[in-house]
């Protein structure tokens, strides 16, 4: 950065080479977000609900937003989203860290364990949702199938439950199971790379100083992993907010047990209620923005300083 600003003739061609992408991202990301925000303040709702006498594209301010936030269904879907996100994030962090800890010192057949733990990441979320629909079958009686039948078979019958139909509020937590299954391997890979990136001398030094294994992890290794833990948190956070495929595959749309904003947005689009669909999407964008923007700015700053 301190180098003298070189002439336009030097950097100009570079800017030119990137300009198609700048224009595409400028329009398809920022332009269309603006367009969405604009639609969300109009009256482009389905014919049945449009206020009598107003044109379809009349601007009605934030009415769509107040309408959503005063709808018990939408509030319920936000609650679902919160519960789902917490179970999703905590679950994937827990198993990811556990597997990384089990593997990090090197074990026999490490490659095999890693490959299997990570393989769900290569599978389409929708395709895995199809099999989780079977696994999370809610029947607990004599005709139980899926995981409930497996529990019965291995003598863990007390674990049988109704999964996502067990409670209209908390049942959604069951949907976190397939998500955790899918993402934990990824988090393991991140932490494992983190552990392996810590210089071996650091461990040696701590051991020579008489640190127990527990102290070694607690005071030497874990602090080194905090940037990775932050990345993992951001990745899991924004993915959990966007959950759509798995829910559509497991319980389908218009399901009161598993309603989340992104599924609602799909339903509204199908009903040609474009204004409210856009409003839901913008609300979610704001959530994601709160999570991701500080992180991106932080990263950009840090890079500048190095």
């Amino acid at each position, binding site marked *: 950065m301190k180098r003298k600003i070189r002439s336009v003739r030097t950097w100009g061609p570079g800017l030119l080479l990137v300009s198609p992408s700048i224009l595409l991202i400028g329009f*398809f990301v920022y332009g269309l977000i603006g367009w969405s925000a604009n639609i969300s303040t109009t009256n482009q709702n389905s014919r049945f609900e449009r206020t009598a006498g107003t044109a379809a594209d009349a601007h009605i301010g934030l009415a769509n937003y107040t309408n959503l936030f005063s709808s018990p269904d939408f509030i319920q879907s936000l609650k679902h989203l919160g519960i789902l996100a917490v179970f999703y994030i905590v679950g994937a962090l827990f198993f990811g860290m556990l597997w990384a800890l089990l593997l990090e*010192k090197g*074990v026999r057949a490490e490659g095999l364990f890693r490959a299997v733990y*990570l393989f769900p990441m*290569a599978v*389409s979320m929708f395709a895995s949702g*199809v099999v989780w629909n079977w*696994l999370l079958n809610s029947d607990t009686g004599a005709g139980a199938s899926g995981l409930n039948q497996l529990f019965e078979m291995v003598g863990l019958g007390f674990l049988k439950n109704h999964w996502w139909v067990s409670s209209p509020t908390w049942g959604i937590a069951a949907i976190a199971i397939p998500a955790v299954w899918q993402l934990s391997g990824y988090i393991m890979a991140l932490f494992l790379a983190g552990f392996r990136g810590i210089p071996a001398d650091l461990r040696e030094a701590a051991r020579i100083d008489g640190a127990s294994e527990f102290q070694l992890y607690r005071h030497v290794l874990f602090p080194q992993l905090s940037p990775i833990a932050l990345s993992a948190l951001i990745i899991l956070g924004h993915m959990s907010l966007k959950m759509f*495929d798995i829910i559509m595959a497991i319980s389908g749309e218009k399901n009161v047990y598993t309603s989340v904003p992104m599924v609602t947005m799909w339903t509204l689009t199908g009903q040609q209620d474009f204004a409210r669909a856009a409003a839901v999407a913008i609300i979610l964008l704001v959530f994601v923005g709160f999570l991701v923007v500080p992180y991106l700015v932080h990263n*950009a700053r840090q890079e500048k300083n190095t």
Partner: protein
Amino acid sequence: MTTDVIPAAAPSELHRKVKKTPRSQVARTVKYLLLIFFLLVVLIPAYVLVVTSFKSFGEALGPNRWALPSGLSFEGWSAAWSELSPALFRTMLIAIPAAVISSMLGAMNGFVLSRWRFPGANVVFTLMLFGMFIPYQAVMVPLLEFLPMTGLGRGVPQLLAVHVVYGIPICTLIFRNYYQTTVPMELIEAGRVDGAGLLRTFRSLILPLSLPGFVVTMIWQFTSVWNDYLFAVFLSSRDNGPVILGLANLAGSQIVPYPEVFAGALIVTAPTLLVYIVLGRWFVGGLMAGAVKS
């Protein structure tokens, strides 16, 4: 970073002399038991898919759904294949060009943003990166209005276009990280002294070094386009869209014929799983780059 993926444990850790006390033996056994237990748990869905797909429709509804099939039945597979095969080709038509074009754009951007910077390059990069985190629903309603205006047909052409555009940020990120760690600034400077301009530097110095970067971005893009459900369901339908919608249709029927649906899920998953098995190392490279930090 993109290619070294996960390094092995340090030799000093692997061969560290730990006294073989009974306690450490127990700890070792518990560790392996846990590893094997989790291995089996992770494989449960795979077991269910494969086993059920070879059952007859009748047997799949039988009393013990976890049992191995009593005999191999291809009922499910042939039904799923005739339903999904036309869409497989369409999915290739979307995923392969999308992977190639996004990767090319990503390589150009990554090169300029790391090794041929212009004032404000970092701001442009950060603004681009944001594009990979947004929920695409936030652009979906206008896309539904805008794409038909471009003259692009519904289905393959529109999906190809959106996947190319929304693939740019991640490909740019991967290449930027890659060039930052593998191409020394001195190499560029030396080229400049010899009078090499931007395009010549890119073509004759950078591109020959870029193969590992391309493998990572192509795999990443191919996998995420192939597995995409969101754009597919909004912008296309079963008769003109990718194979995932065929699977959704199978799974959405009133009485779900599980052998057929599961055979279908395996057909849909096969290409990306094959890529993972054959090129896993580079797949992980893409995942790591997705974490932004290099």
